[in-house]
């Protein structure tokens, strides 16, 4: 059905470029022969967005397809096609809310489906001609697009009603999915009008305007998540749950060290395991294919593989750290340079310096990597919680020897990702394609990574070393700030390098540091990019996972050195950053900053912007008699512009806090002679329920363009807790995770 829908579109898939306009429907499409085609682009920097045509837009069930994002069924359902992956962040709900708002649909009639892979219609306009989800960009890049899509569909339904009832469209109103004309007493549901709207030869819609935000009835309310029910009764479908006729299951034996390759395989014992059907060598290792998962896993255990380690990374975490520390002594490539730091430091009344160490971190989403791939005569079909659809499409095509448009992707919901599924080489998908190539044509294969494969499989948040030095004047005001970062670039050797690396500096390595908001006249941020054979990747909140920690702990150190209150100290340096200041003030006020606490308790604060969303958090901790820390409560203030769904925003702040807290307190992947030392949740510790603080979220009322919330809740929690621990004990935690320095 998805396929038919996609096909139905191809003929109409064109747009008409017009002058940039944000708030007005642009005519001109009406003149195009094939019916009403709306093409518009928002600003010069963004690629053209095509909304396809009306009139000829029908789906196989006779429904109405006004554009690439909406399908109105004769059964009165409205299906929103999500170009973004739902991985827990609530994007299906958020995107559908925007459409339903402008369409004046009833929330109960809304359904959401993953859109097929298509760089032209479903590109992330923040990424360019790429369909993908990341950088907390889904709502931001879809807001205008989906408002217009919804408003257009509404106008076309009104047109259909006007023609059908032979009334003036001006007298028609739409409310909760019902189109009415008061004067004639006529009314119809969207479902009633779907076939008529689809059959209209050419639209007569003359104007489409999006709503004035003061008229919103859904945006800003907490409509229930569209996936809430299916995720409480076990019916939500993930890639792991896909079952196809004749499907086989595969697991892969991968090299014990990064960069290792297969030297020799003895598969006799593996093939003797009942259920094992094949052993296949693939570029990443040796795949065992079986009729079921358990047989595949037992087959892998029985496999004897000799590995060639001659090109493998053999350094361990200790060796890497020693190299990073040596590099930190020398200047790196500048990412930001204001004034003259050396001179200002030399003239400072007081200087403070500190260094920080950050380990590799695995994403460890609850659903380990998995997908289903089938190669047949017509091409390749993929089922996955796919985060980078058109990149995966290209990589799968290359691996299969096909053209990208021969690769169809069914995007299912993902059991988390935190960035792991958005990988530039499409590792897990390409593996499955290679296995499918070795099977009889038409045999679907489900590839499953075990948790051990996941923890040991790389693409980590890189290991980093930071050194900060600052100078204060006699009044305690910072006059110089120097920040040196050492670590791998996550885009090194990828097509993203050309876009993201400027003058040798990967922006994602320094984000959060190079745009430090504090008003300090002399500032230098520089970077050493290291070459290590450990694959790395973006991890929920990317650069800010380490830069927020080092900068916000260090600012606290400066406040202490200056003898100032940490909130006051920050306020004084944020006069040019009102949104930072507002969330800081809100969090401090709601947390009762400055009010006395019981013995053994203390508060810490941090404020950070990531992905254009501003978040401040105040953590309240209790030091236990054994020296361990318990985080009791976190007060979080967030400014993400227009709040599409306040409850989803709260949920993302809560989840970001828990995810970030587990990361700083326990998370570390360490290497010994190149081999990962952790393997599963018993030694890659993550946050559990008894360690979760109470969380209170306050959302700043705003009419600014909406920004994302999937990641920005993560960065401030680590420094807020570390600063609270300092306030309670006088101890600074500079080496992560906390377990290295303290009992937790």
């Amino acid at each position, binding site marked *: 059905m998805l396929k038919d829908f996609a096909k139905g579109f191809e003929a109409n898939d064109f747009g008409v470029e017009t002058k940039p306009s944000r708030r007005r429907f642009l005519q001109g499409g009406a003149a195009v022969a094939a019916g009403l085609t709306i093409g518009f682009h928002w600003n010069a920097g963004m690629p053209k967005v095509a909304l396809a045509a009306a009139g000829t837009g029908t789906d196989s069930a006779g429904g109405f397809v006004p554009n690439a994002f909406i399908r109105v069924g004769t059964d009165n359902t409205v299906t929103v096609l999500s170009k973004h992956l739902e991985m827990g962040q609530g994007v299906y709900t958020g995107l559908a809310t925007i459409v339903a708002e402008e369409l004046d649909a009833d929330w109960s009639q809304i359904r959401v489906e993953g859109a097929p892979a298509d760089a032209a219609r479903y590109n992330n306009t923040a990424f360019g001609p790429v369909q993908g989800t990341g950088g907390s960009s889904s709502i931001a890049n879809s807001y205008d697009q989906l408002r217009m899509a919804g408003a257009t569909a509404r106008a076309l339904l009104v047109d259909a009603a006007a023609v059908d009832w032979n009334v003036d469209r001006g007298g028609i109103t739409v409310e909760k999915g019902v189109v009415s004309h008061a004067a004639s007493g006529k009314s119809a549901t969207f479902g009633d009008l779907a076939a008529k709207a689809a059959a209209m030869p050419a639209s007569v819609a003359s104007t489409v305007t999006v709503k004035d935000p003061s008229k919103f009835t859904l945006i800003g309310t907490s409509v229930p998540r569209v996936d809430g029910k299916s995720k409480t009764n076990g019916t939500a479908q993930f890639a792991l749950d896909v079952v196809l006729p004749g499907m086989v299951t595969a697991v892969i034996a991968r090299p014990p060290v990064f960069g290792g390759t297969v030297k020799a395989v003895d598969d006799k014992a593996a093939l003797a395991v009942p259920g094992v059907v094949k052993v296949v060598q693939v570029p990443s290792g040796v795949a065992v294919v079986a009729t079921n998962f358990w047989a595949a896993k037992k087959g892998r255990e029985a496999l004897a593989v000799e590995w060639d380690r001659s090109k493998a990374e053999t350094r361990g975490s200790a060796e890497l750290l020693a190299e990073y520390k040596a590099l930190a002594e020398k200047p790196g490539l500048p990412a930001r340079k204001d004034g003259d730091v050396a001179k200002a430091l030399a003239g400072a009344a007081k200087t403070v310096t500190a260094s920080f160490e950050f380990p590799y971190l695995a994403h460890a*989403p609850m659903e380990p990597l998995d997908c289903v791939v089938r190669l047949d005569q017509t091409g390749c079909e993929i089922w996955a919680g796919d985060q980078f659809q058109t990149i995966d499409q290209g990589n799968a095509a290359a691996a299969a020897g096909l053209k990208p448009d021969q690769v169809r992707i069914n995007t299912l919901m993902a059991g988390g990702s935190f960035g792991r599924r958005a990988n530039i080489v499409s590792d897990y998908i390409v593996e499955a394609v290679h296995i499918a190539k070795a099977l009889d044509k038409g045999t679907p294969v489900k590839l499953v990574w075990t948790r051990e494969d996941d923890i040991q499989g790389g693409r980590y948040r890189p290991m980093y070393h930071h050194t900060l030095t600052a100078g204060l004047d006699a009044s305690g005001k910072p006059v110089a700030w120097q920040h040196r970062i050492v670590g791998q670039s996550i885009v090194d050797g990828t097509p993203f390098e050309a876009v993201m690396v400027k003058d040798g500096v990967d922006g994602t390595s320094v984000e959060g540091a190079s745009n430090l908001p504090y008003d300090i006249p002399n500032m230098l941020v520089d970077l050493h990019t290291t070459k290590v054979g450990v694959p790395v990747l973006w991890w929920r909140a990317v650069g800010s996972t380490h830069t927020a920690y080092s900068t916000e702990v260090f600012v606290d150190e400066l406040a202490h050195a200056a003898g100032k209150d940490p909130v006051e100290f920050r306020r004084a340096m944020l006069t040019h950053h009102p949104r930072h200041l507002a969330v800081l003030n809100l969090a401090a006020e709601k947390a009762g900053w400055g009010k006395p606490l019981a013995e053994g308790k203390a508060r810490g604060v941090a404020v950070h912007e990531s992905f254009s969303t501003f978040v401040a958090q105040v953590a309240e901790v209790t030091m236990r008699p054994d020296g361990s820390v318990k985080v009791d409560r976190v007060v979080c203030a967030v400014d993400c512009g227009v709040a599409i769904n306040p409850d989803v925003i709260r949920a993302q702040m809560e989840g970001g*806090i*828990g995810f970030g807290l587990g990361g700083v307190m326990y998370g570390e992947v360490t290497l010994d002679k190149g081999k990962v030392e952790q393997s599963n949740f018993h030694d890659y510790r993550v946050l559990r329920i008894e360690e979760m603080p109470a969380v209170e979220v306050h959302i700043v009322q705003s009419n600014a363009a909406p920004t994302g919330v999937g990641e920005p809740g993560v960065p401030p929690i680590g420094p807020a807790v570390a600063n609270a621990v300092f306030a309670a004990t006088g101890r600074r935690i500079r080496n992560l995770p906390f377990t290295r320095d303290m009992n937790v």
Partner: protein
Amino acid sequence: MAVSFKLNGKPVTLEVDPEMPLLWAVREFAGLTGTKFGCGMAQCGACTMHVEGQPTRSCSMAVGDVEGQSVTTIEGLSGKAATAVQAAWENIQVPQCGYCQSGQIMSAVALLEQTPKPNDEDINAAMSGNICRCATYVRIRAAIHSASDMMEG
């Protein structure tokens, strides 16, 4: 080899290696995929089922060991506690990615069946084995308290 047991109230006989974990036997041979795989070593709780009413990590129990016993999965949940827990989960909008939630719900239902009025310590003890990487823990706790209230009312 065949293993026979009661699955969600109905007798089933599965032609499987009795050493196969109950999780995979139920997912791939009984066709019930609501129960998830997260770690395979009794660390995460994603695979929680009830065996004879007890919350059990099905990834670490051989299917042969449930011969003749009664197994309940998320698909077969029923009763007062289950109804309350699922309603509370929806009201409070607990799930994010949702992948851990079958296991969370199975553990929460077992808790409330045994301890209808749990305090926070009881909740910690019963739910500590269920990891949620989306960290929906604040809402899990709230939903368990809410379900407990519903069961009373």
